[in-house]
């Protein structure tokens, strides 16, 4: 991905006396989005985007500018503009940003894949989702609507910095799933999604991943559950034991661990959209975030993860680090600048949505290490009284990431170690460290699955990002539950 204009822009910036650091990032992205609904194509969209973003640290603070014109002249003008912005902002800065040096990085990284999805004929890809979507709507008039989707994105990017870093990466993201809506005689509506909630079904890899999802084989179960929910009783309210399946664990980790461990939030850089964090720097190494069963890691090296890469967008190599170790809060998702504020090294999580946004701290693959709880059925068998919940339906958490309430598509009551009946519209709520502190069992490696959220929003203007979460099902004691209906 050679582009000498990038070097020219960086060389010019390096020659400016008040430039302490600068990076130029070329992003060339192609994608395709397919969606079918009720027997017709809703979306057949190809996507292309290409440009360069330049971020400059002047004598005091940052400036960012970008351009879709990748000629040398345009990049030099963009570099000048980014520096002008940094100078303008510096005029009101009360302190200079501290940015530790990063050793120069060189190399390439690419998603491992067996079958390039962009070589698979469009008709084949459409048929792969149209068949399951049609099957979901067949056999009962209460099956009101069904849809399925398949998205692919390939992002080539090259980062060149004034520190000598020059790295190129090619990342291939996919997402695929389906859902059905039912409407009962009383006008109530239910939804069942597969393999998890829409937007939680992402990964990195090739077309070989589609067959592994098993959409065709799941249609009968999905629509049977969607129909059964219409007449299922509401989830009883109370304080009980809750088992979250693997997919719901992904959402739980995302909202109540991933976001509060973002150091920019904790320091106050994300107030204007997302909020702050209850996990403050003074609590590092002291806060009992969860029970000893809980070890959460930030792993940008997990194979096939939505948050996997070679280097982050300020040239820090990907790595794996514990955020919570046996229940104790030990580290943040951080950048070079924010980590330096705590006297620490960056954990390599600066990522940008595209060429026309600056990098900010984003989750990588934030995952729960598997435990010793055996299989999901072992865990159910070991539970005397409680509910098993699956597939997120709504999510809400406060601006410090403490007070959450999540509702799910489906739940089953558990009595004496057995699933006794399906219940509808379940929700559970809690306070983050109390909730994680109540976890007494995490299923083992056989149940561990890496999920991928495709639309995590953060920043202002907001940036969407692919992030990953691996988890096995887990059990939590003394949780408030109820029915949203």
């Amino acid at each position, binding site marked *: 991905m050679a582009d000498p204009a990038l070097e020219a822009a960086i060389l010019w910036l390096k020659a400016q006396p008040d430039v302490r650091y600068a990076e130029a990032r070329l992003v060339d992205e192609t994608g395709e989005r397919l969606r079918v609904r009720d027997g017709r194509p809703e979306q057949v969209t190809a996507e292309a985007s290409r440009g360069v973003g330049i971020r400059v640290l002047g004598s005091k603070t940052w400036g960012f500018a970008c351009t879709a014109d990748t000629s040398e002249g345009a990049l030099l003008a963009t570099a000048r503009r980014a520096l002008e912005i940094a100078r303008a902002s510096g005029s009101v800065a009360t302190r200079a940003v501290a940015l530790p040096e990063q050793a120069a990085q060189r190399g390439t990284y690419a998603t491992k894949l067996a079958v390039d999805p962009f070589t698979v004929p469009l008709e084949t890809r459409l048929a792969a989702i149209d068949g399951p979507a049609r099957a979901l709507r067949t056999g009962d008039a209460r099956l009101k609507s069904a849809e399925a989707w398949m998205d692919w994105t390939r992002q080539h990017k090259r980062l060149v910095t004034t520190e000598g870093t020059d790295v190129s990466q090619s990342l291939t993201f996919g997402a695929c799933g389906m859902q059905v809506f039912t409407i009962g005689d009383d006008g109530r509506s239910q939804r069942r999604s597969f393999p998890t909630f829409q937007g939680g079904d992402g990964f990195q890899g090739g077309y070989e991943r589609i067959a592994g999802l098993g959409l065709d084989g799941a249609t009968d179960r999905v629509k049977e559950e969607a129909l059964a929910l219409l007449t299922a009783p509401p989830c009883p309210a109370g304080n009980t034991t809750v088992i979250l399946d693997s997919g719901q664990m992904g959402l739980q980790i995302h909202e109540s661990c991933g976001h509060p461990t973002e150091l920019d939030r904790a320091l106050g850089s994300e107030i204007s959209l997302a909020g702050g964090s209850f996990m403050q720097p003074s609590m590092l190494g002291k806060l009992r975030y969860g029970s000893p069963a809980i070890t959460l890691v930030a792993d940008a090296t997990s194979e096939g993860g939505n948050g996997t890469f070679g280097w982050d967008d300020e040239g820090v190599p990907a790595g794996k680090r514990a955020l919570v170790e046996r229940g104790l809060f030990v580290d943040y998702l951080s950048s070079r600048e924010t980590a330096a504020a705590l006297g620490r090294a960056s954990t390599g999580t600066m990522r940008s949505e595209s060429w026309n946004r600056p990098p900010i701290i984003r989750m990588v693959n934030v995952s729960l290490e598997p435990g010793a709880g055996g299989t999901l059925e072992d865990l159910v068998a070991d539970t005397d009284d409680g509910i098993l919940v699956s597939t997120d339906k709504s999510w809400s958490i406060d601006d410090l990431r403490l007070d959450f309430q999540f509702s799910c598509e489906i739940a089953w009551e558990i009595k004496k170690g057995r699933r006794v009946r399906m219940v509808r519209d379940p929700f559970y709520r809690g306070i983050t460290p109390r909730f994680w502190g109540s976890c007494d069992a995490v299923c083992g490696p056989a149940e561990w699955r890496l999920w991928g959220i495709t639309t995590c929003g953060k920043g202002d203007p907001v940036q969407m990002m692919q992030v990953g979460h691996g988890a096995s099902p887990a059990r939590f004691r003394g949780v408030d539950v109820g029915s*949203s209906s």
Partner: protein
Amino acid sequence: MRADALLSLAKEVLASAGEPEVELTVRMTERGCARVAMGELGQHMELVEPQAVVRVAQGARVAETVTSRLDRDALVEAVHKTAAAARLVPEVEGFAGFTGAGEPTGAAPSRFAEATARATPEERVERLAPVLAAVRKAGLVSAGMLETRTQAQATATTRGCARSYDGTFSVFKVWALETPGAGGAAGYGGHAHRDVTALALEAETARAIRVCKESHSPASLEAGNYDVVMEPEAVAELLEWLASIAFGAPEVEQGSSPMAGRLGETITGEGIDLVEDPLSDDPALGFGCPFDREGTWRRRVPLVDKGVARAVLYDRAHAKRAGTASTGSALLPAMGQAGGVGPTALSLGAGTAASAEELVAGIERGLYVCRLHYVNGLVEPRRAVMTGLTRDGCFLVEHGRIGRAVGNLRFTDSFLEGLARCDGMTAARKAIPTWWSDDGAIVAPAIRMRAWRFNGASQERPKL
């Protein structure tokens, strides 16, 4: 780049490509965003967002390309590739063809301000400097953003539709905070206007400081049903979700919308008027492009009239399937999502109260809510049940007066049922930009709703 240049480009591409059925929308958004955090101007950026959306039809087979490349050759190539893809896809039931030359247009409201379009990094810094100083002087920490935005958009079709639009938008958001990221008291101020020079920076900053100071040491409050007065920012959060789940034809077709099967029924209180009002010529309330992504001229659509569900919003295909006309509500792809159908200028009608304090005067014991956080409207969409929390100012109301601050609380309630219990709204309304869309804003008054359900007590929050 201005809209007339984009329209010329679009026409040239259509003429050069030689395909008979093409729709091309071209948009260029240029944004200057000066973002404040921890009392410093930490992220200051100039963003360009070029976007072309090409749709090509082969009969009723339709494919689409979205690209950031706005040069002629790239767009011609995009048309050809899209045409090839369209030959391979199944037919779209109800495809109505692209917009033609003879379709209605109207007078476009003026939405362009030179001062916003010309704003430089130095000007943004100059405007923000007193804001930073005022919050600092108050012993608090500032956060927020000043954005100046220019948007040009053009749509052309091979059936002769040709539209163009130039607009500007500026928005100011400011927080005054007791602590930068760890919670504590917070106050918010915000203002949107097409003209950056009309933004009330000083007044909104003073408001943020005042609310933050009044929010110090909040009391705990039990969960329960409370009469509430919500400021426009809080009402807009709920309306955003209603816009997302209720008024688009796809959600109605799918059956998940609370409007599905209920047109003509009373769905909320008789004092409630909800209108999609994209052509408002009020300079303080009207934003966005006067035509949609298909080139259809937008129009005013009463969605809920005196509490009765009256209409939903359509693009051309959904309208044809429903046997009606497009309302000009086809949305451009944004935020990684496909372009859908829905409102961009949802407006809740005004009431008669002279002020929010007048609404408060009618409450014996309740809450005054400045803003909401992380509302989610997917809890039970058919009833518009939503959950979320208060943020940036929540105060106890006793004997008709605003009293001490209370800690943030979680609510879970049906917004439509809440509006059925709405018995007061202010005459003054405010435009609140949505965070996920460049296209418009929600317009809302302050409202009073009886017995709004808070299912989470505020004392739960700080105890770890």
